[in-house]
């Protein structure tokens, strides 16, 4: 067998009858997306490391007469692999996964819609075991599919590792340490934004950001100019220390900041900081308002 892509070599392989090239270290999912071949995913996100937990991205790989179901978000192809992304066997595994998830999370419409695409009208399993009764139903449990994106984004992107999985098997859940206020949580809500089923929420009330499902409340800071709360205290501290933001700039909300300093990044950074970013070697960057950033 020739060297696989994970050994740092480009490989040629067949993807749904198409002769394609996988770059060094590239997964089947990535190659497929480059070629416009749709593969559904739930626990995958470009910003974080792959997990292989949801099993929705499965594809079938053939070597001669043998074949195997693999997760395309992790599997790096070997030379001359033959990969099929949407055959009957693959679709039946996806249908199986979605039927289970639809039974687990009856309130998650994202799952219900995806399941419908794979022919699951109503799960054949009893769904009443999610909570003992209406009164003690856990909203997180009703929507969370345990994909772990929130855990990974907090750890790998935000760098806080404030939340994690606790428990094993069906007891597994996303939570803060000991289900109490997470000291490490900066209230950035990256976990809320990345959640594919809307299981996590935050609410800004009375100068505080409340992350109900994660048992955590963080103080909000009001913009010095406009007076609107724009970020949490810990979030500002974190951004300040990471970007070496000047105190002046940090005290303003993004919109007021652009108004006060203009569009030049250099102007909001602390004066005594060392040049560390690539743009400081000549490239120029422009600040944008958050609304514009979201649109992009």
């Amino acid at each position, binding site marked *: 067998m020739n060297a696989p892509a*994970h050994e740092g070599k480009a490989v040629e392989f067949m993807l749904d009858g198409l002769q394609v090239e996988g770059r060094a270290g590239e997964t089947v999912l990535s190659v497929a997306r480059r070629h416009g071949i749709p593969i559904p995913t739930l626990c995958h996100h470009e910003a974080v490391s792959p*997990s*292989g*937990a*949801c*099993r929705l991205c*499965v594809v079938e790989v053939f070597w001669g007469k043998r074949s195997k*179901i*693999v*997760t395309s978000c*992790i*599997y*790096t192809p070997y030379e001359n692999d033959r990969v099929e992304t949407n055959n009957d*066997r693959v679709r*039946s*595994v996806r249908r*199986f*996964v979605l039927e*289970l*998830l639809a*039974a*687990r999370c009856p309130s998650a419409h994202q799952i219900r819609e995806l399941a419908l695409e794979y022919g699951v009208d109503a799960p*054949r*399993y*009893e769904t009443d*075991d999610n909570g003992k009764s209406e009164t003690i139903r856990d909203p997180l449990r009703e929507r969370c*599919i*345990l994909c*772990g994106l929130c855990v990974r984004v907090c750890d790998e992107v935000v760098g806080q590792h404030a939340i994690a*999985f606790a*428990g*094993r*098997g*069906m*007891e*597994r859940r996303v939570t803060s340490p000991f289900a109490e206020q997470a000291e490490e949580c900066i209230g950035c809500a990256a976990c809320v934004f990345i959640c594919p089923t809307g299981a996590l929420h935050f609410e800004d009330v009375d100068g505080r950001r409340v992350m109900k499902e994660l048992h955590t409340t963080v103080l909000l800071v009001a913009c010095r100019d406009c007076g609107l709360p724009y970020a949490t205290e810990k979030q500002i501290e974190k951004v300040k220390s990471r970007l070496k933001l000047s105190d002046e700039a940090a005290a303003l909300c993004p919109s007021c900041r652009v108004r006060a300093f203009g569009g030049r990044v250099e102007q909001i950074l602390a004066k005594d900081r060392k040049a560390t970013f690539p743009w400081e070697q000549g490239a120029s960057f422009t600040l944008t308002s958050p609304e514009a950033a979201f649109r992009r």
Partner: protein
Amino acid sequence: MKTGTIETPRQLAAVRSSARKALLNGHPRIFVGTATCGLATGAQKVLDALHEEAGKASSMRISISETGCNGACFLEPLVDVVLPGQARITYGHVQPEDASGLIEAACAGTVYKKRIIGRIDKEEFLVEGTSKSYRRGKLTGDVKEVPRYAALPFFRDQVHLAMRNCGIIDPTSLDEYIAKGGYAAAAKALTEMTPDQVVDEITRSGLRGRGGGGFPTGRKWATCRKAPGEPKYVICNADEGDPGAYMDRSVIEGDPHSVIEGMIIGSYAVGAHTGYIYVRQEYPLAVKRLRFALKQAEEAGFLGENILGSGHSFTVRINRGAGAFVCGESTALMASLEGRVGEPRAKYIHTVEHGLWNKPSCLNNVETWNNVPVVIARGADWYASIGTQGSKGTKVFSLVGKANRVGLVEVPMGITLRQVVEDIGGGVPEGESLKAVQTGGPSGGCIPAELFDTPVDYESLTALGSMMGSGGMIVMDSRTCMVDVARYFLSFLKEESCGKCVPCREGTSRMLQILTRICEGKGRPGDVELLHDLAQGMTDGSLCALGGSAANPVLSTLKYFAEEYRAHIEERKCPAKVCRALITYSINPEVCTGCMLCLRACPVKAITGERKKPHIIDKLACTKCGLCADTCRSNAIEVA
């Protein structure tokens, strides 16, 4: 005698020959089997009583030591007495009150007349292929009358390679291990062979992983040896978690040095200098024995720098598992070793290339490591002469359940299930009939009695929808409900699923939900199809082997015992009369003598009646505990 540092193979040979003399000559030696199985049946009290009696009878020197389990757990507590110049006599079911008699007989050089099991005539040196008779001159009449141990039905078909020293030597004595030929294979490998030759020898022997997967050990070692990256690691998987299986525990408790020696040889072959033993915390005695053996091996120079003058260095550390079944899976085990949560990862990139701390790692099971010295010492050809075409050597099984003789049995591959269950295990109690045997633990399946002529090897068991697994073998008779068995295994797997991937986490839970309702008489039409769908999805879709094989107990029972499922679902009947919701207890008035025993035994007072008149069970109050049936002396309680 204390062994000093052993720096060369020559020194090892000298220690061996002096230690061997002590084995065969001198004073009577008494061994008490104090593996966990022995301790559970009271071996500690027997040991204490023997020490006390020996102290009283100070006329003669008698050594009393502990030993592991020879496999005959059904005879525990076991005591062996070596009568110098005659034989080694094994006694079973020994009680503390037998101590004085045993000591007296040992001093007199004769046999204690009670509790006799059998006689061993020779001290076997398996790794050398030699043996030495205890006998000097004629046997006394009493000794001669003791039946030969090797001819007993339980032992007749067994071949002890992995268990070569279990129940024979004192596991805390390095001298005894060396006397039996221990560390000779390590000396041979490290000083007379190149690493490639060692790998080649293991490959040619046909040894396959004994932990369940059955991957060819030689091929694993060769890949690990070639894999780029330093340092490399060797790991011993002693996280034995299958319900009813305890081969690894027994091997460690009875012969810890054999595992360490195997790891030394493996580390030399793959080029590793650090080894880890991942052992369950629930095996306190095994952990203790391993710790002690590691210390001995370090002091003797078998671990550390420049082992036996070969230039190879190797150290071993013990890590204790915290009780997760999934940590027996190699990638989860390695994650746990690294201090992370014990969850598996996809194995598209093998652990032999990127394992512990992303370095090449060679992980083998306890029994595999323990077999390595035998292969090296006796040679690949000799080892490969045992077993079948595809499965070489022997396999230790823990034969448990409804068999008459339960314990650890080590048999050559290719022996039939019937031989194991009926000849060695003695079948099931009279009046019951053999129904099935469950092999391979929770990932395995149930094989019906009609197929008992199947040879025990990796491929044959897999073809039947079961697997070799790590070696659990649970015998079931007519009193076992197969739906209930499937439900039990799924409840185990549901508890032990780590919860990372959807098919295993949700699938085992749904399967259990369905099986539970079938057992409760609430099965629905279509449940069998649903189970099949779940099984297919879990097998195809799961991340690791736990979920991938979790459906086996269900699939195999569906395949071979479909009628039982049908009876549960359609007729609301449990043919084996196990599932409580589907059975009723009643008293046959013709047979009942009115003795009032059941009436008194019933914990919920559901039985009423007068003396010498037939009693009646109130079916609404009855909790179906079965105590009345157990107490009734005239078999008047009927279950339907």
